[in-house]
């Protein structure tokens, strides 16, 4: 298998592979203007419901399980579904993981697993990846973890400073911030009238809430509010993003990354295709294709790509066999992931499924391995220790090892 990045920029890759191997690699982070530096940002395109791998990134044309999906050549070393022509042209900037396996077949449990890297244990809450990235990156005035189009998981023991800023409706969120700006007078009166109570108390929760109240005042004054708007963006630009709701969200995501938000998750629902799989997947891909392609292209040309991880994933894959309702059911055994940006090697398909897509051929990776790879790309040691609210020591990931095809390190 040919690794384009190694062919093109072997020495640069070598240097950063060396840097990543060293724990103090992050010291180099700021000096990297271009090239494959460590990641500082992350964009997740979350396919809510569990996207069918066979109809997207691991097609099986000409087999019974393959269905009507046709394939298309890409700028990477592999073919993908013909439903994603724009994405196909960006595949040299992305890699596929075709051998990721999991055993979580329930939506909530799988959503949790792919958002935190850990299995769901209600009494042992784990921080979402977004919260962890927020915690591990320098403080900022803007929220560091934003979700668009759906909710995200919380910060667990990392504290509410690292909770997601969840935006269902960008216009509403913007109005919210503008109202705060307008009501600045009220907030300063609040601060004044609340002061006697606050200074009398001796409780960390009171202090935390006081700090939060101050934070909303300062938040209204940042460019965060403005980046929620796509009003200034031209029609042709919007057309590149497909003029859909998901497309608009992707445009906002681009703005947010540029405004300094470290972790943005954009959700696209409709992938739980137990019935009429092919019509639904086609509709979903029509929504997904242009914004996904445009985002990668734009991040590349703005240079953000070099320190931004781009991840496409959902809860799980879907059964290769087509059920009686022309649908596909939950299939965690193969969970498709697309990843690129930052120090990740791209243009590759990692691993493979067998001819009719029923199982992984050869080596496979676990969700924990994916998370070890993501964290390593940020220069965060996968075994970094944390202490929970109930004083239990724990690690950033669950004993994962870095996927070596994607990142040379550790």
């Amino acid at each position, binding site marked *: 298998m040919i690794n384009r990045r190694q062919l093109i920029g072997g020495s640069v890759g070598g240097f950063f592979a060396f840097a990543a191997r060293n724990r103090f690699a992050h010291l180099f982070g700021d000096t990297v203007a271009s090239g494959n530096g460590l990641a500082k940002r992350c964009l997740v395109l979350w396919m809510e419901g569990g996207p069918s791998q066979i109809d997207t990134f691991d097609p099986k044309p000409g087999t019974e399980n393959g269905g009507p999906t046709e394939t298309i050549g890409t700028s990477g070393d592999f073919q993908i579904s013909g439903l994603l022509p724009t994405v196909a042209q960006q595949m040299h900037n992305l890699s596929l993981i075709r051998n990721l396996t999991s055993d979580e077949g329930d939506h909530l*449990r799988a959503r949790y697993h792919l958002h935190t890297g850990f299995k769901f244990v209600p009494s042992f*809450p784990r921080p979402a990846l977004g919260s962890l990235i927020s915690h591990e990156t320098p403080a900022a005035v803007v929220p560091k973890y934003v979700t668009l189009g759906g909710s995200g998981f919380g910060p667990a023991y990392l504290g509410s400073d690292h909770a*997601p*800023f969840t935006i269902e409706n960008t216009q509403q969120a913007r109005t919210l911030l503008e109202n705060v700006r307008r009501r600045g007078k009220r907030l300063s*009166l*609040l601060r004044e*009238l609340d002061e006697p109570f606050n200074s009398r108390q001796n409780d960390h929760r009171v202090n935390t809430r006081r700090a939060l*109240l101050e934070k909303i005042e300062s938040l209204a004054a940042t460019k965060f509010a403005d980046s929620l708007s796509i009003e200034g963006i031209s029609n042709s630009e919007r057309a590149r993003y497909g003029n859909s709701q998901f497309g608009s969200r992707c445009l906002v995501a681009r703005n947010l990354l540029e405004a300094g938000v470290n972790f943005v998750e954009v959700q696209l629902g409709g992938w739980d295709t137990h019935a009429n799989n092919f019509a639904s997947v086609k509709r979903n891909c029509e929504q997904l294709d242009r914004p996904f392609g445009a985002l990668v292209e734009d991040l590349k040309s703005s240079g953000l790509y070099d320190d931004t991880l781009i991840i496409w994933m959902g809860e799980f894959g879907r059964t290769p066999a087509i059920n009686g309702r022309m649908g596909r059911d939950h299939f965690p055994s193969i969970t498709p992931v697309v990843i690129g940006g930052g120090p990740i090697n791209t243009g590759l398909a990692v691993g493979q499924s067998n001819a009719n897509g029923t199982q992984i051929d050869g080596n496979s990776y676990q969700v924990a391995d994916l998370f070890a790879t993501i964290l390593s790309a940020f220069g965060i040691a996968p075994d970094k220790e944390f202490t929970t609210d109930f004083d239990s020591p724990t690690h950033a990931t669950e004993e994962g090892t870095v996927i070596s095809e994607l990142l040379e390190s550790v």
Partner: protein
Amino acid sequence: MIFRSFDFSALIVAAFVAAAGGDNFTTHSQRIDLVLQQRHEAEGITPLPRCNDLTFLRRVSLDLLGRIPTSEEITQFELNPDRAAIIDSMLESDEFERFVSEVWTGWLLGYSNAFNTDRELFRIWIEREIANDVNFQEMTRKIITADGSVAAKGQVNFLARHRYNPAVTVSRSFLGVRLECAQCHDHPFDRWTQDDYRQMRRFFSTMRFSNRDGTIMLQDRNANNRPGNRPTFLTGSEALTNRYREELALYVTNCKPFGRNFANRIWYQLMGRGIVDPPDDHNQENPPCDRKLLDQVTEIAVTENFQVKPLIRAICKTEAYQRQSADSTTSATAINLFAARQIKPLLPEQYVDSLLIATEQPLDSRRRRQMIRRAVGQQNLNEDFQRTWDYRETVQQLLEKTNVEIGKQTSQSAREESLEQLYMRILTRRPTSEERMACQDHDKTDVAFALLFGNEFFFNH
């Protein structure tokens, strides 16, 4: 230290005789205060005095009814500030039963309908059980042995919600014992071994969940094991029959940690911190702040046969409950030993109901439910709420909260009424002279806003 030898006699035969004559509950309260007094003297701590009447009214109203008092209630109480009487009357109200059911549902299930459960049905079940004076022992037994559909029987929802780790959740909720560590290895600082965990898990091994017509059904398959092969409880006792969950329910509800956990849990909910704190983690490295106090409160719980109301009544009537809240000069030891009141943030339910009262808005149940979900916060919906008093608000939530229109009615009233009326309605107290000065040049709507979203409103102190 915790328990190994199984001791039915201590709990089932409640051999505690209340002091002869007089009011039982006063006696309970006095006993608690006596234990604390002895400890405070030994430590050289001077406890804070009683809080004033209005602070007490706000506190007890939030704790027992889940909301701040209305203007009329404030007026009534100022005319006759009988603390014992108002505790008694609140305990007999419907609002009390509803609010306790809400607090317990948060504790036992959290706030979502995860895994196709019906949280509201569980809550209604608890509310009815409390209204019917079913004690906590019996409720726990029903929860552990529940079967049937989550849509038909409220109590089934507990195990359905926790079906992926029932052993851990039952131990933690009803015994205050955390087996999480023992899932993978022996507990690092307690006696629990991985085998204890495996054994506990076996009690649930007969459970079968099925999805019928979109609702979750819980049924048991038959177990068919001979003595010697049946699961053993944390005490080392083996199940006597093959009806594992029945057996477990008996063991759980009759062992000493069950009583301690119940007493400590109720204490935690009212006092803002546990005698064992955090309340869901009784272990050798986390002993009670005062062993005698835990024994005393447990004894009351047992004497009162695990009824909820008498225990709450006893705690609310103590001096400890009625003290002033800690200030910046109070030592950590004094707070730990309940020589000063520990403040606590409002629960989502308390916050929403109080906001509705303070802004004179009607209590529409559908709107209320939406507001509560929002107050919990999207990112917290599936989280665990065993630690009721953790603070979880985020910037975004505060942003959204402070953005609600406080209503024409409120603005109208705010302009018409005096500053004193406004303070009474929102903060259950009169403004100080400094506050009168500070508010002088401000629109009353702005003052109302500042009071509603400030910390003083958001905490129960």
